[in-house]
Structure formats: structure tokens, C-alpha cells
């Protein structure tokens, strides 16, 4: 049996409004990367297709490259362009 990873995925601001939710649990095959997660989300169809193909992403509170491997239990946030200050 193949392993899998359970990812807590967070959405904020415009992404949260777009999707109508701030949080989803996403199940991916072991070895999945950040960009695999984004592809899996976009393939859900509907509003998810409006997500950018390569958004900024933070894994466990740190900005992370799209090629990074995900581990079971990771918290991944899709970060819309920031506008603090």
C-alpha cells in the first residue's frame, strides 16, 4: 500500500473569499511537493481553477519553494500578494 500525506491547507484574504473557506485537509501521495498540492487544488474545478498556478506558499510558517517535499501533518498556506504597512 502506498503512503500518503495529510496536509492542512490554509487560505487567506482574497483566496479565502474566492473559495468560501479558510481551511481544507488535503490528502496527497507520499512524495508530493508544494506544486503538487497546488495542482491538486486547482483540479478540483470551480473557484479553485482561479487560484494561480504558482502562488507564494508557506510551509509551517516559512516561505517555501514549489519543489519542496511535503510531510504528513504539514500546515501549508497559500499566500496572496501581501499588502501590509
Amino acid at each position, binding site marked *: 500500500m502506498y*503512503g500518503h500525506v495529510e496536509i492542512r491547507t*490554509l487560505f*487567506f484574504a482574497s483566496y479565502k473569499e474566492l473559495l468560501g473557506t479558510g481551511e481544507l485537509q488535503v490528502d496527497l501521495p507520499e512524495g508530493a511537493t508544494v506544486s503538487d498540492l497546488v495542482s491538486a487544488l486547482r483540479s478540483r474545478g470551480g473557484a479553485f481553477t482561479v487560484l494561480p498556478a504558482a*502562488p507564494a*506558499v*508557506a*510551509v509551517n510558517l516559512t516561505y517555501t519553494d514549489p519543489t519542496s517535499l511535503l*510531510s504528513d501533518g504539514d500546515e501549508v498556506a497559500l499566500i496572496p500578494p*501581501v499588502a*501590509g504597512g
Partner: protein
Amino acid sequence: MTFFAIVREPIDPAHVLTLIGADQDGASLLFLGVVRDHNDGRSVGGVLYDTYEEMAAQVLSEIVEEAARAAGTDRVAAVHRIGELEVGEVSVAIAVSSPHRAEAYDASRYVIEEIKKRLPVWKKERYSDGAEVWVEGRTPKAPDAAPAPQPGASQADGS
């Protein structure tokens, strides 16, 4: 001591100034970011700031530490407010003190510019005609350096 905070209540600039300052410092500098009544030609009635609070606290802490290290002072304080703000209210306060003014100006500028580049905070403007729009921001970049090491980088243990 450096200081950082993400807060929901109004910021008291005078209080932020009390977080810095030392006998060897000849310069104390306070920067305030304030909600203005217009943007891109539209009349703004107020703004809503949203955040990824846990990460924002961590990123703001890193920014403050970087500024302090570069300026050679540990008297750097930064506070960002979240939630609904009216025109004229303070959204961010940055206070720095150092022996001479140049380091204080540099550190203050660094903190506000880095906040705009990478603090996970988002701003929705409410216009006087009732419309609301998320302000087009900047896309933060992952550090160029090697990706963060994966804990237990070797093979996962099956199952």
C-alpha cells in the same frame, strides 16, 4: 531589547516610543503608517487588515532582528494592527533608537519596506461608494538559499 507585535487594538505611538531608547542613543525615530482617505484616485472610507497571525508574528520578529543586526542597535520595535481601521488610524508603528541618526533611519526604512514585501498581511479597502476591494499587493519570494532541510530528509519509514 527588540520588540514586535501583531495587535487588534489601537496603537499608542507614545507607548511604542517607550520600548526603545537608551543612555547611549542620540537618535530616537518613530514611523507611523496611517490609513489615508484615498488610493488610486478613489475615496477610501476605511480598511480591513487580515493576517496569518502566527506566521506574521514570526516574520515580523525576523524583520526586526535583521534590522537590529544591520544597524548595530537592539532598540528596534515594530507593531502592526489588524482588523477594521478608519481613516487617520495608525496601522503600523516602528520605533528605533541608536547612537547616531543614520542607523536609526536605515533600520526604520528597512522594517517598513520588508513589511510591505513579505509580512503576511492583506488590506481590503472600503470606498465611499460602498465597494470593497483587496489591494493588489506584492508576491513574497521564497528565500533563494537552499530550501529548508526536511526533517528526516532520508527515506520515510514506509506505512
